[in-house]
């Protein structure tokens, strides 16, 4: 399937001499700090490439200052990229003029912000309807649609409230509803739950998973929290100092970290929750008895523990009838013990 978003060699440099920086291979090869010292420019995003597939939940994660917010703002040109290409459904967004860009923002994508960005002088319903209002949708239709998404995010009954009368979690639901109201193809989230306390955050994560399942939209989700990334992401992009370090599924990052940076990142993850049998199976040895139970390679270790430990023979990892490897007590215990 064609990707919805395809980003190629994207650069964003802050500073008056930004275009010189991206024009020079020598300057581009410098690290962020060196570039800062030499030219005073900040390279927030440095040569980033990735594709997002339709319906995918794509997570970008990295430490504070690694350039995530800048990257996601480049995708909607809230921040003007310095160089590179951004293809959206086959159209180069960087070529779009102001009007086309507005059309795209009104119809194709929308964004949920860390600090909500709600309009304090408007009610919940009017906040949610704001995007429709600036498109010129008539009041009655606007009200109908607002109500639909307000119900969808579970805010029924709060339509007439003002943002400052709501808790943080509810305010972010308003932000979510506002983003959904225009029925966009893609939703961007910039650390939407960082400002919320842990319990509410968990609720909201489940909410997003549910919405993703129900409305099936493509989503690009920024976070600095690895467990959030693993919980939500179909694929995860790890950023460091503006560059991509690794892109992959959760178990790929945990099972085969690209470098020490990623390894360090994932070392506290409960591996049994993320790794699948694919990552711990070994080739059968001659002494193995190969008539034990079978499991597919995508089974998460945690879910396989019981069957492996209770079987007296090694468990076979099988895809489409083909034997990929086996998993026995010692492999399982290796993972589980490693976490202690």
């Amino acid at each position, binding site marked *: 399937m064609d990707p919805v978003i395809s980003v190629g060699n994207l650069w964003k440099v802050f500073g008056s001499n930004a275009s010189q920086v991206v024009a020079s291979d020598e300057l581009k090869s410098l690290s962020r700090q060196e570039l800062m010292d030499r030219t005073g420019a900040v390279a927030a995003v440095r040569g980033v490439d990735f594709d997002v597939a339709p319906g995918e939940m794509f997570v970008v994660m990295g430490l504070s200052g690694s350039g995530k917010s800048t990257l996601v703002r480049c995708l*909607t040109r*809230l921040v003007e990229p310095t160089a590179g290409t951004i293809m959206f459904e086959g159209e180069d967004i960087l070529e779009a003029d102001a009007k086309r*860009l*507005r*059309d*795209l*923002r*009104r*119809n194709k994508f*929308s*964004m949920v*912000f*860390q*600090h*909500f*960005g*709600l*309009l*304090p*002088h*408007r009610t919940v319903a009017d906040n949610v309807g*704001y*995007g429709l*209002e*600036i*498109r010129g949708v008539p009041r009655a239709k606007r009200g109908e649609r607002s109500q639909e998404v307000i119900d969808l995010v579970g805010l029924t009954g709060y339509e007439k409230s003002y943002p400052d009368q709501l808790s943080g979690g509810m305010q972010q639901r308003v*932000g979510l509803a*506002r983003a959904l109201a*225009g029925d966009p193809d893609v939703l961007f989230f910039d650390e939407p739950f960082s400002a919320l306390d842990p319990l509410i955050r968990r609720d909201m994560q489940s909410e997003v998973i549910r919405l993703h399942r129900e409305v099936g939209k493509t989503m690009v989700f920024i976070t600095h929290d690895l467990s959030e990334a693993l919980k939500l992401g179909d694929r995860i992009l790890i950023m460091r100092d503006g560059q991509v370090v690794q892109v992959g599924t959760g178990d790929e990052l945990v099972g085969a970290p690209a470098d020490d940076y990623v390894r360090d990142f994932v070392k506290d993850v409960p591996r049994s929750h993320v790794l699948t049998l694919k990552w711990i199976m070994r080739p059968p040895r001659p002494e193995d008895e190969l008539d034990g139970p079978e499991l597919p390679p995508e089974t998460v270790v945690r879910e396989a523990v019981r069957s492996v430990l209770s079987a007296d023979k090694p468990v076979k990892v099988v895809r489409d009838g083909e034997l990929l490897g086996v998993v026995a007590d010692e492999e399982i215990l290796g993972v589980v013990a490693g976490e202690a």
Partner: protein
Amino acid sequence: MVAVAEPQQAPPQVSQPGPQQGSRPIYRSKALIAGGIVLAWLVLWLVFRNVGTLSLDASALTPLHRWINSVNDAVGASRNSNPLFLYFFNEIRFVIDEFVTFVQALIAQPSFGRPVPVIGWLGVVAIAGFVSLVVAGWRVALLAVAGFVFLGLQGLWQESMDTLSLTLAAVVISLLFGIPLGVWAGLSDRAHRVITPVLDFMQTMPTFVYLAPLTLFFLIGPASATIATLIYAAPPAIRITAHAIRSVPHNTVEASESLGATWQQTLVKVLLPSARKTIVLGINQTIMAALSMVTIAALIDAPGLGKTVVKALQTLDVGTAFNAGLAIVVLAIVLDRVTTAATERRKLPRWAMFGGLGVTGVAVYLSYTYLWAAEFQSDVEIGSSIRQGATAVTEWVQDSLPVITGGFKDFVTLALINPLQALLAESPWFVVALVIVAFSFLIGGLRPAVVSAVCLGLLVATGLWQDSMITLASTLVATILVMVLGVVVGVWMGRSRRADRVIRPVLDAGQVMPAFVYLVPFLALFSASRFTAIIAAVVFAAPVAIKIIADGVRAVSPATVEAATALGSSSWQTIVKVQLPMARRALTLAANQGLIYVLSMVVVGGLVGAGALGYDVVAGFSQGQLYGKGLAAGVAIVVLGVMLDRLTQAAAKRWTN
């Protein structure tokens, strides 16, 4: 844990930090030098007393003053021939005059061949009530109605309406320019950079100073008064609007853009509504400033309550001045309450809206048609009783309390004003100039010394050296009194929440009142004298200083104060060793602002016996041959202001670092 940690951090904060102790010797030697200078000054004063003081008689003129007079005459003669006047100044004057006259015709002056204005008192009261009801709610509407009726009962309906017309006209024009400019400065950094210094200049210039040059271009009358009011009243609207736009959180703007809003949509639907409340505050300040200036513009013949006050002050008719002053206060309170309450979100029920509209319409019709609803009946007047009461109280106070009021007055006059004035005004001018330059150098270094030297040179050039020194003496005395009051009340408010709660509203109210109003009670108590002018200036300037100091003391971290208390400091020690030193920045700012406010009252003081520059300016407005001298006196006030402002800022910089 906490209990252990606090005393540990405390010592360096309680015993004053190193740098000061390290620089003690420098302070000591500076104090020695300063003492030496003062001593030498005293000796020179004794020897050369009344020599080279550059004094000038009240009616005497210098060539410069005559030259300005001739320029004034020449400008007057070419007013209807010079293209700059024909196509620029006269046009502006014409438009503004027309506008003001139109508003006056509506509510204040007989017009369109009628013996009465278009809308009579009943209609105005109804409109005031209805507008207040819509923007500010029931209670404020009642207050507005009561206030306006009271104005009529005082026998000052027409004067009040003249003042209101001028104020409204100036406010409308101020906002017409001010709000768009403010929005522009809020959106564009470059505009902000250009506009801010201009506003600073407009706001620090003493208000009376531009009255005279304005009359040169726009003649004496409503246009000059309105433009003077504009200069004074527009800056708060511009500044606060820009600030309001700037403080809308970036993320709401970004969110709006991310949804595909055009920038006009973002401006109209996000920026302006989010900034609304603050902008209304700006409008409030503009209205209050305009009212204040409109009354002051009586000096250049603006009609209304101010004129009544000025006339009464000139004939020392305390009763009439009090009555008109009271009317200004009532108007100020009503306008302030209505606009303050307008910041709140409010929705009037539909029936009240239409009901109010209907009643107002009927009232306006009645006041258009029937004389009883147009002219305030004079048989229910209470103004004369107010006047008589005020006069009686004044006489009683002057007869029976001379020990207290007179004693205080004599003390300040003999102990502070006279010696300082003698030293400044009776020494040879070059001695005083040298002393001031030397002090500037001691306080701030080379730059302030140069600035002072230039300013002193300009003062000599205005031909008003001695008057400037007399005014300087009064200004310094007033500022000292302001700072004493500021520190005492400010520290009290800073330390006690309850004191703050009680005093702050009084100060706020005091700041809202037009400067004139202060003169009246003090004139009653102390009759016309330098002292009266000084006290009026002190009362005008003290609220600012007190508030700044109170906020500074309050801002000293409670943890530090607690630590000092834990170490056993007495309250006195805490104030002197912790709170005041840590509030240094506030103290210097208070001194600086106090000075500027005191200076801006110099001309008003000229109305009640301050003499010197204030008198020169006032006389320049009323007597043609003194025009040039008055203008020069205005310049001298500005020069004094610049010098003192630079000096206090330099001192502040040295002291707070």
